[in-house]
């Protein structure tokens, strides 16, 4: 008994003596926390960007803090405002705006981030301290086994054989919001701020929609045969299409679609600011952009990223597709979003 106690005492004293030497050693390896989407995004982003970064910067460890959606990332940043635990955050541009407005992010300057000069103009939005890191677009999802021939137009959603077999995540989710704008233009709307034509068309579609709240998501509904048609994000759609063995495919309709922008931001008061900046520089570099685009089919923001023709064909980034995209200022959309949600609830969700 006494022996053990003496033993413990010795260990404790040894530890105390060693403490000053342990500290600097661990401080050499800096650890930053990156908050970004969970699930399939995490799997691929970690492999394509985070791991190569850590290999290139052996002194920096990146902990991936998985978030189910942008909103929760914002909520976490808010809660930690006094003592941030997150260094870098990836979220939707509208959330990036809210975070900037609330003083949660530090601006990225051209002096500190020369890589900004290589980015497409769409990566920057006024008043948003975070900059674009991925471009995605809305795609038509379908089951190749049921929907024949392969659809090329959004109009397939209104076709008789598929009524009751459609899964779309409706507003307030951003898929529903974006779809309203795309369908609005399809039905003659010339200004996306006047979206009544879109609401009306989706209201007519509502009885034929199996679920406006497919859980876990529309991709799963189609892969497991519950639905035959849906709407989702292109990058995920393309990736799932390649994994599903012919159960799911994603089409970029000929009438065009619209872009969604994920931004990367430096958290104000980040515990490891310098390491965080190094990470952001890398995440925006042509190398990282190419790797992630080829792995998960997000269109690159870095114009110098030399993405393979095959991967590029699966994104909306080709010149002829770009020309058809609906140009949307998401910060304007944020302003009309409440009004649009009201219309959705009154005229779309309550039908059928």
């Amino acid at each position, binding site marked *: 008994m006494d022996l053990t106690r003496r033993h413990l005492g010795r260990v404790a004293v040894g530890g105390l003596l060693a403490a000053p030497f342990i500290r600097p050693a661990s401080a050499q390896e800096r650890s930053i926390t990156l908050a970004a989407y969970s699930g399939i995004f995490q799997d691929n982003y970690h492999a394509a960007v985070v791991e190569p970064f850590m290999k290139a910067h052996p002194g920096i460890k990146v902990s991936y803090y998985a978030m189910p959606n942008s909103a929760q990332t914002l*909520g976490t940043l808010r809660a930690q405002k006094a003592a941030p635990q997150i260094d870098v955050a990836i979220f939707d541009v509208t959330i990036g705006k809210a975070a900037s407005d609330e003083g949660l992010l530090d601006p990225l300057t051209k002096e500190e981030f020369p890589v900004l000069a290589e980015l497409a103009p769409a990566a920057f939005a006024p008043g948003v301290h975070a900059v674009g890191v991925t471009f995605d677009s809305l795609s038509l999802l379908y089951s190749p086994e049921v929907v024949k021939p392969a659809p090329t137009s959004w109009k397939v959603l209104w076709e008789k054989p598929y009524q009751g077999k459609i899964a779309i995540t409706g507003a*307030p989710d951003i898929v529903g919001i974006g779809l309203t704008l795309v369908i609005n233009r399809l039905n003659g709307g010339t200004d996306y701020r006047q979206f009544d034509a879109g609401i009306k068309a989706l209201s007519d579609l509502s009885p034929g929609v199996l679920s406006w709240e497919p859980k876990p998501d529309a991709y799963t509904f189609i892969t497991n045969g519950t639905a035959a048609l849906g709407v989702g994000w292109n990058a995920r759609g393309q990736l799932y299409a390649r994994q599903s063995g012919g159960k799911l495919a994603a089409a970029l309709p000929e009438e065009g679609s619209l872009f969604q922008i994920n931004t990367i931001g430096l958290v104000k008061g980040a515990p490891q600011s310098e390491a965080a900046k190094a990470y952001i520089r890398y995440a925006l570099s042509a190398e990282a952009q190419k790797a992630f685009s080829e792995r998960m089919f997000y269109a690159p923001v870095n114009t110098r990223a030399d993405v393979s023709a095959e991967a590029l064909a699966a994104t909306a980034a080709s010149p002829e597709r770009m020309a058809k995209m609906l140009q949307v200022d998401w910060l304007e959309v944020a302003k009309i979003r*409440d009004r649009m949600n009201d219309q959705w609830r009154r005229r779309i*969700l309550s039908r059928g």
Partner: protein
Amino acid sequence: MSATPRNLLPLLVLPAVAVNLFTFLWPMLNLAGLSFREGLPGGGIGAAFSLATWGDLLADEFYLEILLRSVGMALGITGLALLASYPIAFFVHRADARWRNLLVVACISPLLISAVVRTYGWLVILGDAGFLPVILRGLGFAPPRLVFNMTGVVIGLVEILMPYMILSLLAGFGRLNQTLEEAAASLGAPPLVVFWRIVLPLTLPGILLGCLLVFVLTVSSFITPKLLGGGRVLLLATEIYDQAIVTLNWPLAAALSLIALGVFGAALLVYGRISRAAERSIA
């Protein structure tokens, strides 16, 4: 240091009060404060005191509609759960002592599986290619849509909440005494009258407790309505979730949460009133 039990009592209660103040009252006050701020586009929260959130909420008929729908649906589900659970609870209560524990465990065993998993189970059973519609179609009926609408939500929630109802009923069946029923029957009361005049009043405490519990759980449930409602069943709890997590209008979510709290308060009040009246009528 000599303390009589009388003045020791407040001291003993103090830790519990402190914990409650810290974990319940303080967040509630925070929530109340948040509801008096304004939600800005894109999820921001205004810094200044504002009545805008409450003003918009009270002026918008939509919120009255979802409040009425939530309360109406909760009452309906409570009634259905009671109808479905009462015979089971009665049977378990009267079962041979050897089997009773086993039966109780069987009744509450669904609680061992997450409500989310059970909800997905209902998707499989009620979905278009699920076994219930397939059987109905085999019998020559055209089945109505059983899921992704209110029907699905009601079916799912009744099943998910039945164990709570059964447990509450069993807990309240203590006063039930078979000799009273035999006495009534020997005096010429037909079975229905025995049930109405003897069994029902004696089991009322359990009924009230179960109803309160199921009602409150229904009003606050949002996963099952989200999964089985197909986005078409808009309720107080789903709206709070959407506003807090998707549109990030935290002030509005806070105001709606306070309304939900008001509904729970009203339910407790009604429960208190009825159970006191019931006590008096039995005594």
